[in-house]
């Protein structure tokens, strides 16, 4: 078979996965068909319900990118303060990092050579 990928522990076969996925989808569809049948199109049933309030315009309704994952950034505020610090956008700092990392690598390689 050209689809089986051996990874040492187990194998991975996308064809089997897709077949399993299709089977699960068929079962899901089967359950879905057993649901309510009174739904009517183009009536109040299909409209957005927002606690009985007026639904805002399309421009206001969309959740913009700045508001997504607010809690995530709030929790990791400390981390982001630290990680944003080197991202200065100044070209001189970029080269400073290069010199520093090269120096560290040279020192590590030389010390590792001495230890032998």
């Amino acid at each position, binding site marked *: 078979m050209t*689809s089986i990928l051996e990874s040492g522990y187990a194998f991975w076969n996308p064809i089997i996965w897709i077949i399993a996925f299709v089977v699960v989808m068929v079962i899901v569809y089967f359950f879905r068909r057993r649901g309510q049948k009174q739904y009517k199109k183009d009536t109040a049933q299909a409209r957005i319900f927002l606690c009985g309030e007026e639904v805002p315009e399309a421009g206001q309704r969309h959740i*913009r*990118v700045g508001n997504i994952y607010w809690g995530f950034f709030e929790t990791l505020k400390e981390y982001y303060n630290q990680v944003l610090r080197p991202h200065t956008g100044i070209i001189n700092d970029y080269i400073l990092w290069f010199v520093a990392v090269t120096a560290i690598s040279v020192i590590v390689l030389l010390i590792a*050579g001495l230890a032998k």
Partner: protein
Amino acid sequence: MAALITHSPILIIAIPLLAAFLTLPIGMASKKARNALVIVSLTFVAFLVFALARDISINGIHIYTLGATSPDLTTPTGFMVPVRIILEVDGMSILMGIIWSIVSLAAAIYSLSHIASETGQNRFYTLLLLMVTGGFGMMFTGDLFNLFVFLEIASISGAALIAFRTRSADTQEGGFKYIVVSAIAGLMVLFAIGLLYAQYNLLNIGALAQVIQYTTLDKIALALLLIAFAMKTGMVPLHLWFPDAYSVAPASITGMLVITSHACMYAAFRVCFTLYGGVIDAPVVGWILIVFGLLTMFVGVTMAVYQKDVMRFMSYHAISQLGYMWVGVGVGLAVLGNPALLATYGRDAISGGIFHILNHAMYKPLLFFTGGALFHYTGTRDLTKMGGLAHKMKWTTILYIIGTLSISGIPPLNGFSSKILIYESVFRFNPILTITGIIVSILTLASFTKAFHSAFMGAELPEYKEGKEVPKSMIIAMMILAAGIVFITLFPSLIVDWAIHPAADALIDQGAYINAVTGAVP
């Protein structure tokens, strides 16, 4: 046909070069003829690359000597060592070549309409084809100095292309940062080459690998080469220029820049495995790669979640994905001196890393192209101004979903097959690496969901009511890459057996590379 295959390594490099200088005179006469020339030459190059790949899978390493009386005469009569320019194409090089040929063709097709409204298009295609030349040269050369020359060709043309749209300040800033970083990295590579030449009087990689000693100067040269190439690749903490340059380039160029990044990564692997393979202090260098790889994965993805500019956000993801490759290949390098461990999981780890290069080269340009399509439609890269675009851009949405699922490693897409190879082999080396990898994968999915929601989902916004889906050539370019993703998804084992394992073996087997140059019987 046989002659074509014999000469194909140099033809692959020279045909884009020839076409690059033909675009200007032809473009002055007719735009259509110029576009046809670009597409036809790149298609022909792609055909040659595949023919060469087939030849290499049958006959092994392909050697080409420039200017010799016979292309396989590496050491001229009367000389002890190879002195001519030698191209040496093995399993790893040709895999990179296949990637580069597909992506550059897709990028050229994408450019046809993406930059259709700009001035100076003749120059654009000249630079694009020069960049193709530089990339192929880096991948195919068997000579350290040529590596430097082709690296500079790719860098200079890349920087000019990043700054191609001169109307806004940020493109100039991105191009400037890119060229400064490339120039300094290139000069450090040259310095390291000088250090090696001073001791051995050789420039050929195979011949150097035979005599290299790992003295103190060699260690300094190794560190310089490794870190300079790593900076060009965008390894944290040397990644700072990466989003600045990648986010402002025309989207087609950003897709190609990702592959030049991989070419630099290939050069770093070539230096570690082939040039220093016999003498390297493998665990130390391997751990350096692993530590920086973990940092790259984690910092890249957390910075990506934070971004609000669509191209910048994808650039940070490119950085993060590069970390997987460093970790995979780094683990393989760390156990290089131990044949038992290498056979148990080292080879699988290297294969996983290389397979991830192939997969990343398919889905990341696709995602950049969709980002470019969003820019084409809305005229902005700012995600806060977007919304509800799925109503108008149906094809782009579907292609974006394919790319997203693939980059996040959702089964059954191709990102999953390479990530599982990395996870399961790396787990036996150190479980922390796998755990970090999975966390990074989850964060990747989370951030792409965020971008998907803010750009495509939601009701149709009033400012984007007008407008059509992006032009056909852009869709076709994205389709080519999506077709690649689907093919790798369905036949992962075929790809691994045919392309990835030969590439991994080419890296591990230093002797074959040396023998191909020095002419000893393998």
